């Protein structure tokens, strides 16, 4: 998980010009780092490429809209890293 977190933290820092040392596993991409939906597309693209996956952003957004999930589950970075690890594992299964 830590290497995944490091990778996405670096992606966020580079994509959104956010100081790397201000990005922690507890950071919420939207609420804490101020990343908007357009910037998150760039981040998703970089993550998709780096990990060879397809982040299910639409599914996550729908789940949040339906009240079936909170944004914390997907956009707190340690949770995002865990989701990515799951997707990578599922790809290799």
């Amino acid at each position, binding site marked *: 998980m830590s290497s995944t977190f490091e990778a996405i933290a670096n992606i966020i820092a580079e994509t959104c010009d956010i100081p790397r040392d201000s990005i922690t596993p507890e950071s919420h991409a939207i609420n804490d780092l101020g990343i908007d939906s*357009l910037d998150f*597309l*760039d981040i*998703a*693209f970089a993550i*998709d*490429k780096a990990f060879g996956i*397809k*982040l*299910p*952003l*639409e*599914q996550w*957004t729908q789940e949040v809209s339906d009240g079936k999930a909170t944004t914390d589950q997907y956009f707190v970075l340690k949770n995002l890293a865990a989701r990515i690890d799951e997707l990578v594992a599922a790809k290799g299964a």
Partner: protein
Amino acid sequence: MRLEYFQLIDRIVDLNLADRKINCEATVPTASTIFEGHFPGYPLMPGVLLVEAMAQTSGWLVVAANRFERMPFLASIKDAKLRTFVLPGQVLSVTSHLAHEGSGYAVLNARINFDGKAVADATLTLRVLDFPNSEMAEQMRKQADNIGLKIEARANG
């Protein structure tokens, strides 16, 4: 091009969904009120409209890839380069390659050539959403027919 209707693409020359590529033709009109201001005495195709031509070409590729079930909207333009002037009457070749299909977005590398030489290029991100209403979906289908994006073409490749 029908600049007054913001229709930048005249016809689809080639669509290859297997390779995720499209090639469109777009002829710059010889006369337009746009050229009265851009520029007086020296008409040039505005660079923003060249970007729009690349966006529309990319959009048709995404529309085709989604079998007319979803609609792309321009979200981001990166590394846009306008390499040479484009003059009234020139017949442009506008191509695009679907580099990545994400969840709710697509990234495409687009290019315009004239007479075999690079005119413009850019990397575009399109949001890909459900059609906001059935009327828009129907109008897109009609326009697709007008420029030669037919069901046969969508089924091929």
